[in-house]
């Protein structure tokens, strides 16, 4: 019989793309709390293995573990990560530590126009933009599982000095009335 964690693993492997939690729940007929438990069991059972889960926003994806990076690169040289310029890396950093931030906030804190860097990050699939619920015209950006994969971490809470840098970003950027 297929346990929920095994079912999730099969779906993530077959899909090859990040799956939305809502999608997983409908496919498996699970309540939110049940999915949460199943995901926890699956991710624990993956400890010490060659593959692991990455979670960004409400999306889950299965990827090889960071430790296997050099090995897998031998298999897949074409997909090597091209470097990111300083401006794009700075823009990625603002979005990483201040998820759901807007272009206005990014320009405010960087002191320069960030539209070119945002376009680079969007085209590489490292960030995605979503319309602000109460203000359609405003786009809020967040990291994708692809970005976490390039950073070699499973979720944004694993970002270096996450608590410290995220807190700093929150109280400074958020005050700015856009």
């Amino acid at each position, binding site marked *: 019989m297929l346990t929920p964690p095994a079912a999730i693993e099969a779906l993530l492997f077959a899909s090859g793309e990040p799956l939305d939690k809502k999608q997983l729940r409908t496919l498996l007929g699970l309540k939110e709390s049940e999915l949460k438990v199943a995901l926890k069991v699956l991710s624990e059972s993956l400890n010490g293995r060659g593959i692991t889960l990455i979670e960004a926003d409400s999306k889950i994806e299965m990827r090889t573990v960071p430790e296997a990076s050099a090995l897998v690169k031998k298999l897949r040289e074409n997909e090597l990560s091209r470097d990111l310029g300083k401006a794009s890396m700075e823009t990625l950093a603002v979005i990483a530590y201040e998820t759901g931030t807007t272009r206005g906030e990014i320009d405010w804190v960087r002191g320069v126009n960030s539209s070119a860097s945002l376009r680079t990050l969007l085209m590489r699939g490292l960030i995605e933009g979503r319309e602000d619920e109460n203000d359609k015209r405003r786009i809020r950006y967040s990291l994708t599982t692809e970005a976490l994969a390039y950073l070699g971490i499973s979720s944004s809470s694993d970002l*270096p*000095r996450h608590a410290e840098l995220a807190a700093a970003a929150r109280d400074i950027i958020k005050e700015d009335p856009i």
Partner: protein
Amino acid sequence: AYQGPFELLLDLIETRKLLVNDLALANITEDFIAHVRAQDAFPVEDTANFIQIAATLLLIKSKSLIPDIALTDEETADVDDLRRRLEAYEKVREASRELARIYGKSQMFSTGERIPEVTFAPSNDLSADALAEALARVLAAREIVEELPETRVKPLVTIEEMMDQLAKRVQSVMTLSFKEFSKSNKEKIEVIVSFLALLELVKQGAVAAEQYTSHGDIRISHTNSISVPRYV
């Protein structure tokens, strides 16, 4: 490479091992303006930013030269805003360096691209009109983003124009804030004169550079020390 104003400010402060505070900002005012002057031209959309920051720096500078100068509420807000944004940018730069350290180092790969078995499965929202609308929407969305780089191509603000704007901006503010000083003791007026001379120096610096090259007779000391020129 082109540096944004905050990047430049932080570099100037960091090279002098200072903390981000008003004293540091006052100290590097001339360097910031000298750096701005050294650029031959500026992308239009960044010029306003540089001028605003240069003007705020001169406000902080004037506060350091004349401690009990009364800045207007708006000026104080500008000074606080600059400091807050710089502190935030300092954190962003730290975060960016942290990410750069790990980016691409231990990449996590997705499942290999299995060739998906193909079954012809159009959708009910698919039609020729839907395609035309979708492409029109994409092209329209690009218009808004597009027009920004265009302005970069427009004639750039030359340094002289920028220095004039800056000088006018600060002088009008200065005269406003100096109103009550004119009556008080001589020593304060001496400082005010030297400060306005600094401004003149900066403005002339841009002009004298040309004269210097063509006639070669006017000598002006370099601005990185606050040695105020003696006007005979």
